[in-house]
C-alpha cells in the first residue's frame, strides 16, 4: 500500500496566538493507507495542526505538499477540493435538520430546475449510514440523537465526500466501547482503500489499536515520530509529559483544618443521587469521573445554579440554604466554570471582570469607587501574575491562562473560602497549568478548601489530598492521596 512519495507532507508549520506559540516549526507527513496518530496533552497543538490542514485556521508560515506538489493557502473549500475531510471534535452539525440533510449539507443532490431530490438524499444517507453499520434513521432530527449517534452521522457526512485524507479529532471521546470498535473497523476499511488518516488522541491505549505511526507533540513542538511497534505506553507518556512530575504538579502538603463544607443527601432529579462529602480547610478534594458522570451538575447544584431536589449543606457547621449564586457567594463559595467562556465578560476590561462577583452582593443603587477598583485589581494582577499590557485590556484579548486567572481573581476578590474548580486546566497550555496548580497551593495555604473536578487522571492523582470517583451521579470510591492508580480511577468510573 505504501508508496515512497508521502500523500501529505507538512514542513516547518508555525502558528502563534496571543500569548501562545501553538505550533513551533512542526514537520509532519502521512502516507496512503496509513493511520498516523497525533498524541499530546491538552494544549500541545494537535487540534491546531489539523485545523490548519482542514483550512479552518490559517498558518503563519510553513509549506504543505500533497503528492509532492506544493499547495498554497488553504481554506475550508480548497481543503475539500483537495480531498481533505475533517471530523471536528466539537460537532459541526445543524441540530434542527435531519441526519440526511446534515450528511448532504452544502451539496444537496438536485433534480432539474434546482429542486432538491429528497429521495436521493434519504436513500444516499441511508446507504452511507448502513455502510458505517449504524442504525440511525436518516430522517431523525440531529438534536434528538445522542452524542455518539451525532458523531457517527458526522463521520458519515465526511465519508460521502470520499476524502483522500481524513482528519479525526478525538473521535472516540463520546463513543461507547461498542461504537469505538465499529469506528476502528471503519478506519481499517478506509485504509484498505488507500485513505490516509490523521488520528488525534490523548488516550495512549488507543495508539496500537489503530495506528501505524505515532507523532508526539508537546508545547507546540514535535517530540518525536515512531512506528507503533516501537512505542510502548510508558515511553509515549514520558514523551507527552516531558518534565518532572514535581515541576508540573507542584503539590505542597499542609495541615488540614476543620470541615468547612459538608454536603448531605444531595440529589438532583435523575442526575445526582445521594451525594455526601466533607471538605476541610486547606484540602484539595478531587472528584474524578468520565464525561457526563454528573460532576458538572454537582458543582452547579452546590453553587445554586440548579434547583436541588434535596440537600443539606453545612458551611463551617451551620446549615445553609443556597438557592442562587448570589447566596453561594455570600457564604464564601466560588466556582471556576468548566467553559471559560462562561466565566469572563469578554468585552469588559480587567477591573470590572475582577470585581463582578463582589459587586453582585451590593444593592443595585450602590455607588462604585472606581479608584479602589483599580487598586484592588492591580493587586490581583501582581499576585496572580496576570500578563497584560494594561488594566484596560478587554479580557477577550488575554490568553486562555490569563483569562482563567482573571476569573480566579474574581473569586479571591469576593472572599471565597470554598472554591470549586471545574476542569481548571481545560484548554490552557502546560506552563499555565503549572501556574494554576501553584495558585491552588497558595489558596490552600490560606485555609481555602478546594473541590477539584477533573477528568485528567495525572493531575488529579498528583494534586488531590483525597479523590472521590463518580459514576452515574453517585460516588463509587474514595481514595486518600497516593492510594489510587489510574487503573483504580478508571475501573470505578466506568
Amino acid at each position, binding site marked *: 500500500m505504501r508508496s515512497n512519495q508521502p500523500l501529505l507532507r507538512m514542513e516547518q508549520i508555525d502558528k502563534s496566538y496571543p500569548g501562545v506559540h501553538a505550533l513551533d516549526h512542526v514537520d509532519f507527513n502521512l502516507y496512503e493507507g496509513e493511520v498516523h496518530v497525533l498524541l499530546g496533552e491538552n494544549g500541545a497543538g494537535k487540534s*491546531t495542526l489539523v485545523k490548519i490542514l482542514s483550512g479552518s485556521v490559517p498558518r503563519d508560515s510553513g509549506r504543505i505538499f500533497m503528492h509532492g506538489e506544493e499547495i498554497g493557502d488553504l481554506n475550508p473549500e480548497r481543503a475539500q477540493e483537495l480531498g481533505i475531510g475533517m471530523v471536528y471534535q466539537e460537532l459541526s452539525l445543524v441540530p434542527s435538520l435531519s441526519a440526511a440533510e446534515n450528511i448532504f449539507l452544502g451539496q444537496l443532490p438536485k433534480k432539474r430546475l434546482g429542486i432538491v431530490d429528497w429521495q436521493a438524499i434519504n436513500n444516499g444517507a441511508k446507504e452511507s449510514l448502513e455502510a458505517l453499520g449504524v442504525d440511525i434513521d436518516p430522517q431523525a432530527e440531529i438534536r434528538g440523537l445522542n452524542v455518539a449517534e451525532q458523531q457517527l452521522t458526522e463521520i458519515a457526512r465526511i465519508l460521502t465526500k470520499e476524502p483522500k485524507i481524513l482528519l479525526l479529532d478525538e473521535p472516540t471521546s463520546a463513543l461507547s466501547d461498542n461504537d469505538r470498535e465499529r469506528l476502528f473497523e471503519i478506519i481499517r476499511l478506509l485504509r484498505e482503500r488507500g485513505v490516509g488518516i490523521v488520528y488525534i488522541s490523548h488516550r495512549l491505549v488507543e495508539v496500537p489499536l489503530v495506528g501505524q505511526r505515532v507523532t508526539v507533540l508537546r508545547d507546540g513542538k514535535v517530540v518525536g515520530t515512531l512506528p507503533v511497534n516501537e512505542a510502548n505506553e510508558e515511553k509515549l507518556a514520558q514523551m507527552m509529559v516531558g518534565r518532572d512530575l514535581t515541576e508540573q504538579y507542584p503539590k505542597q502538603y499542609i495541615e488540614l483544618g476543620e470541615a468547612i463544607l459538608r454536603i448531605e443527601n444531595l440529589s438532583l432529579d435523575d442526575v445526582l443521587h445521594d451525594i455526601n462529602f466533607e471538605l476541610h480547610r486547606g484540602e484539595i478534594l478531587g472528584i474524578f469521573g468520565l464525561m457526563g458522570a454528573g460532576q458538572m451538575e454537582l458543582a452547579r447544584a452546590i453553587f445554586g*445554579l440548579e434547583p436541588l431536589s434535596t440537600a443539606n449543606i453545612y458551611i463551617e457547621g451551620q446549615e445553609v440554604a443556597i438557592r*442562587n449564586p448570589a447566596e453561594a*457567594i455570600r457564604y464564601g463559595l466560588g466556582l471556576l466554570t468548566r467553559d471559560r467562556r462562561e466565566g469572563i*465578560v469578554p468585552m469588559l476590561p480587567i477591573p470590572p471582570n475582577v470585581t*463582578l462577583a463582589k459587586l453582585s452582593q451590593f444593592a*443595585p443603587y450602590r*455607588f462604585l469607587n472606581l479608584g479602589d477598583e483599580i487598586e484592588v485589581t492591580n493587586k490581583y494582577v501582581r499576585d496572580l501574575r496576570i500578563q497584560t499590557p494594561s488594566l484596560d*485590556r478587554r479580557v477577550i484579548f488575554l490568553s486562555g491562562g490569563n483569562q482563567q486567572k482573571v476569573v480566579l481573581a474574581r473569586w479571591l476578590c469576593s472572599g471565597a473560602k470554598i472554591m470549586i474548580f471545574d476542569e481548571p486546566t481545560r*484548554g490552557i497550555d502546560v506552563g499555565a497549568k503549572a501556574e494554576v496548580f501553584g495558585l491552588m497551593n497558595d489558596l490552600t495555604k490560606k485555609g481555602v478548601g478546594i473541590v477539584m473536578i477533573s477528568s485528567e487522571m495525572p493531575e488529579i492523582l498528583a494534586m488531590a489530598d483525597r479523590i472521590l470517583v463518580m459514576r452515574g451521579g453517585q460516588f463509587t470510591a474514595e481514595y486518600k492521596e497516593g492510594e489510587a492508580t489510574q487503573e483504580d480511577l478508571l475501573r470505578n468510573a466506568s
Partner: protein
Amino acid sequence: MEDEVPQRAQSETDLSLPMEESAVATRARRGSQTIRGLALRGGPLIALILLSAYLSVGSPYFLRISNLVNVTRQSAITAILAVGQTLVILSAGIDLSVGAMAAISASVAAVLMTQRVEIAGLAFGPVDFWLGFLIAIAVGTLAGMINGFIITRGRIPDFIATLGTLEIYRGIGLLVTGGLPVPSHLTATELKGYLPEPMIWMGSGSFLGFPVAGLIALLVVVVGWFILRYTALGRAFFAVGGNREAARVSGISIDRTKFTVYTICGLMCGLGGFVLAGRLNSANALMANGQELNSIAAVVIGGTNLFGGEGGVLGSLIGALIMGVLGNGLNLLNVSAFWQRIIQGTVIIMVVVFDQWRRRRFTT
C-alpha cells in the same frame, strides 16, 4: 476542550480577535493613543461634525440660532428615548414599545389634565401640572415593568414581548383618548381644556436662551451615564449583556436586572412622551410613531453594540443629534420627504458599516 486556541466567538464583535502584537507595534500603538482614542470612540462625533460642516456651507439657515434651537428640540425627544433604549440594548435586550409607551403616558396624562373623568364612580380631574407629570412618569414606568415582567416570567424573546406590548399600549391609548387628539375640540371648550403652561414650556420653552427640552435630554443623558459608570446596577447591565452566563455565575440575577432595565426604559419614555406632548401642545395615542426605530438607530449609530455588552449613552446622544441634524438639513436643502427617508436609511447603514470597519481596524 483541546488546544488552547482562543475560540473565535460567533458574535461579530470579535472579528478582530487573533492578532498577535509585536513589541514594535505596541510602542507604535502607545504613541498614537490619542489618535486611536478619537478614532475608536469619536467616530459618531466626527460624523456629526462633518455633517454639520456640510450643512452650514450648504444652507445659510442651518447655523441660525432659531434653527439650532429647533434641531435641539427635535433631537431631544429621540435622545431621551434613546437613553432608555441604550440601557436595554446594552443588557442584550431590545424595546420596540418605546414610542407606544411615550404616547400612552402622554395621552393618559393629557386626558387627566384636560378632562373630568369618572373612574369607578369617583369623579377626578382635571389635575394640575405636577400630578399630570407624575401620572405620565408612573404610566411609563408601569408599562416598562409590564414589559420586564412578560420577558422574565414569560421567558419569551424581548423582541416579541415588546412587539406585542407595542400594539397593546397603542390600543389602550386609543381607548383612553377615544382616538382623538387631546385636548380635542370637544373638550377644549369645557373646563380649562388646555394643556398646562409648564408642560408646554418643557416642550417648547427656553431657559436662559437654551431649549428646555434639550436641557431635560442632557439631564437624562447625564443620569444614564452616571448609572452606567458609577453604580452596581450599571455594571450588571454590561455584564448581563456581555455574557449572561458569566453574570449569572457571578451572582447577578438576570431576571431582576432585565426587569429593572425595562422599568427604567419605561420611565424615560414617560418623560419623553410628556415633553413631546408639551412641544406639540397636544397628545394622541399614535404620537411618537416610529420612535422605536429612531431610538434604536440613534443607539446603534452611537456605537453601542446591538448584541449588548458594550457602548454607552453619550454615543446615543450623538446618534440622536445626527438623526435630528440630518432631518433638519434635508428640509433646509429642500429635499422631498420621500427622498429624505431613503437618505436617512442610507445614512444609518453607512454610519454602522463605517463603525464596524473602524472597530476592526483600531481595536487591539
